[in-house]
């Protein structure tokens, strides 16, 4: 099963990605070659190189960061209240249409 997720880049362009359910959002973004989604540590919430801002409309469905992720987010250049590590978001059916913003940080 695939859903469509949108990565908005700092230049305001949007990358539409067909993401397979069950993968993490980081994996989906990386597989599609979305700039700024790096995922150095392979998805272990250890490197914060897959930081995204979840569109406020989607924040509830994407969920809140867990304790370790929250700490890791403090290491990002500009943490906001909608910051998440995309490796900690699992792509699922209810995230069809998800919009996230990619920060300048790793581009």
């Amino acid at each position, binding site marked *: 099963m695939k859903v469509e997720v949108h990565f908005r880049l700092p230049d305001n362009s949007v990358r539409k990605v067909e993401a397979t359910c069950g993968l993490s959002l980081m994996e989906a973004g990386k597989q599609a*070659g979305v700039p700024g989604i*790096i995922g150095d540590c392979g998805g272990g919430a250890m490197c914060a190189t897959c930081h995204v801002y979840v569109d406020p409309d989607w924040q509830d469905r994407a969920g809140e960061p867990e304790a370790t992720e929250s700490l890791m987010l403090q290491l990002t250049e500009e943490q906001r209240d909608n910051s998440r590590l995309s490796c900690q978001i699992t792509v699922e059916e209810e995230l069809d249409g998800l919009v996230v913003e990619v920060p300048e940080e790793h581009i």
Partner: protein
Amino acid sequence: MSAKVTQVVIVGGGLAGVETAFSLRRLGWEDDLVVVDVEAELPYERPPLSKAILLGKTDAHRIRLRPPELYEQLGVTRLAGRRATSLDLAKQSVKLSDGTALDYHALVLATGAAPRRLQVPGNTLPGVLMLRTLSDSLALRSSLTLGVRLTVVGGGYLGLEVAAAAAQMGARVTLIEAGNRLLQRSGSRVLGDILANCLEREGVSIALDETVACFRGETCVEAVETTSGRLFQTDLALVAIGAAPNGELVHEAGLSGPAGILVDAEARTSLPNVYAVGDCANFHDPRFGRHARLESVQSATWQARIAAAGITGTGAPKPKHAYFWSELFDMKIQIAGYADPSTPSHEELVGNQAEGLAIYRFQHGRLAAVECINRPINFVQAQLLIGRVARNLVDLKEVKVES
């Protein structure tokens, strides 16, 4: 006069090479981009080779660095199954094993490292294995049947990970280490001893202070003999005694030594337009103020981005603290920072094995590294503390070490 060459040639299809290629595209490099890869396999992540792949928890296509179509989409040409054999510096050209020559505007050496061989009799017997590539990992996995005897030579992370995975798969595992503890080059004594206990609890038998004298066997390995005269009967042996940088290509040019290809903090060699990144590079690390070759995912990706920035004339990424990780059984091991193994260090422990623990390592009056087992909070917090002037945990108290 010949046309201006605008091609970037990257030698090596491991993480550092592939990351350089895609970083170049990300940074706006529009001209030709070629990756020369010895392996036929599409580039993949190596860390899972001694963990998830061995255990059958993931498969080959899930560990690909990039999907196949992305190479095509972004114009990253992969010349697979070929080796760069020589370099013509005057002509700025690389010769490949198939006889073709590639002219370059910039050359990035990402040739990696090769597992060190044990130079002892019997080292070429069938059943004496090494682990570096996906096919090595798959071959080892298929040999690890229930009850098979495996002798791992080397008590570094790779040896420990394979020993743990093999034990989980029902192999009877012995681990031989020449030093008097595990992780001699890569971890604290405390951590080495804790992991030794865990391995032994899971049935791995550990022999310290034992140096391999030879491998014995008629048609395949049957035993490992050590210099003290001990004989370890075995069906398989895995040699995991570290890796040596691949620098043959620039050996003649005098750039390569036992510690790797010498590069500055911008990943440049002393040759014009020639860079080296990843496991093959002896990089002038601004975090330590000296040359270092750290075999890690983070070093590889960081140096790749530095080289790509150099080639495109864009700003280089800022340094971050080194980090490493490993997995043994249900233990997630995360290490922040880097402690120099040749320098004495002072260690203090926070937490316990049941709830997770962290080992703080102090060197030269500073916090050098923090080793965590199932304790991600301390790992994350450590990123902000590494390098702080402190001799011990008391000195760090003002920044509240979670305990």
